């Protein structure tokens, strides 16, 4: 184990190695032509997938009037703001202003863009462009994302680990838990389960992780 605030992952020998990526959502939770809110540190994100399947993570703020872009809608390869329909394409650049359909929007109108990549059914985000891709977890499939009203360290400890990537056994299944720090002292918990698990085993896993959340939150509340 290494001591670091940076997210870590497991290498082939099961040791932890650092990654500059932060887990933000599960791929299945953001299907083609849809957008969802996310977080990276102090940043609010609009995580969205184009009609052709490309994933992107942008600042969750329309440069026009500040509306959250995660409330927006996707047509083709563009994310549009729900407020006045300004549409943004490749690199966050404004490509369409519906009230002025013949205007080519100035290049300066741009949404700040973050790095986003997918591996093993998890969407990872980063502020800069990390040197290596996000980690793969062979044999595992993304299961559920939950939020826990407790510190990431407390969630990790309840799973018997530390850091961002934790191997644990829950409801008899060998799972990987990815812990995401969220604002207000909360944690995102993205779970991966063996890909051949049957539905009943996954129901039991879901119940086990809900129970774990209740325990961690009760302990956090008692300590407050």
């Amino acid at each position, binding site marked *: 184990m290494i001591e670091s605030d940076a997210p870590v992952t497991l290498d082939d020998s099961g040791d932890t190695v650092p990654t500059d990526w932060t887990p933000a*959502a*599960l791929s*299945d*939770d*953001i*299907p083609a*032509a*849809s957008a*969802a*809110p996310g977080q990276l540190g102090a940043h609010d994100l609009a995580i969205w997938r184009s009609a052709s399947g490309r994933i992107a993570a942008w600042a969750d703020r329309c440069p026009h009037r500040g509306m959250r872009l995660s409330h927006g*809608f*996707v*047509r083709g390869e563009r994310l*549009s703001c*729900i407020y006045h*329909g300004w549409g943004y394409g490749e690199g966050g650049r404004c490509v369409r202003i*519906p009230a002025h*359909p*013949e205007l080519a929007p100035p290049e300066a109108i741009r949404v700040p863009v973050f790095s986003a990549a997918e591996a093993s059914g998890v969407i990872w985000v980063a502020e800069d462009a990390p040197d290596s891709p996000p980690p793969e977890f062979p044999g595992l499939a993304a299961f*559920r*994302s*939950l*939020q826990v009203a407790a510190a990431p360290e407390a969630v990790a400890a309840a799973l018997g680990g530390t850091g961002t990537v934790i191997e644990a056994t829950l409801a008899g299944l060998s799972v990987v838990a990815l812990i995401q720090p969220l604002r207000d002292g909360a944690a995102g918990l993205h779970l991966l389960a063996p890909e051949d698990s049957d*539905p009943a085993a*996954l*129901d039991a896993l*879901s119940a086990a992780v*809900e129970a774990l959340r209740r325990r961690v939150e009760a302990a956090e509340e008692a300590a407050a």
Partner: protein
Amino acid sequence: MILYDYILSPSCYRVRLLAALIGRRLDLRAVDVHPGQEHLSEPMLALNPAGTIPVLSDDGLVLTESTAILSYLAARHAPDWLGEDTPAMRARVAQWLAFSQRLTDSAGAARAHDMLLAPGDIDALRGQATKALRELEAALSAARRRGESFLAGNRPTIADIACFPHVALAPDGGLPLDPYPSIRLWMRAIRALDGFVEMPGIHRLHELKPEPGPMPEVIRKEQA
């Protein structure tokens, strides 16, 4: 079929939404709930001594509970929406109809507190609403694992319509929906249904409508 209606009431919207989805026209009578307090006027109390809306009046039948109105509309005009294929499906519909009252009493009460200055212990209401939303999220994620998009199976029923409004409007009561990916996808599935109608605070899926074209000629000429 007369519906005594208030545009900002999620319970009235349940009825308007189902009627639209099954293609039935309602004779709407607007009741000035806020600020007029018309639902507490003598003529309205004569119709419904509880002083609540919606009230449905049809052929001498007067119904004052929105879930009963949903059952009546579906039974009369679109029995598929009752979800009575099997004893289990019928029970799931009954379960979620009863659950929808918990949403009204928690998320709905939190919204009434924040928007209409209704009395209430807002922290307790949000706590109860969070428990209900987590329960819904867990159930919908289990449904997704079985390839189902709705609460009682692979097609929408009155149970979905009963639960949808107070969930969609929960952010008005200080309850963000960001933590609930399966709820988000379920709401998308409902908003994508043929005949879906909006209420203030719940918008349609813009991407399902054709993109606005160029300005019509007539407007261009006026501008010139």
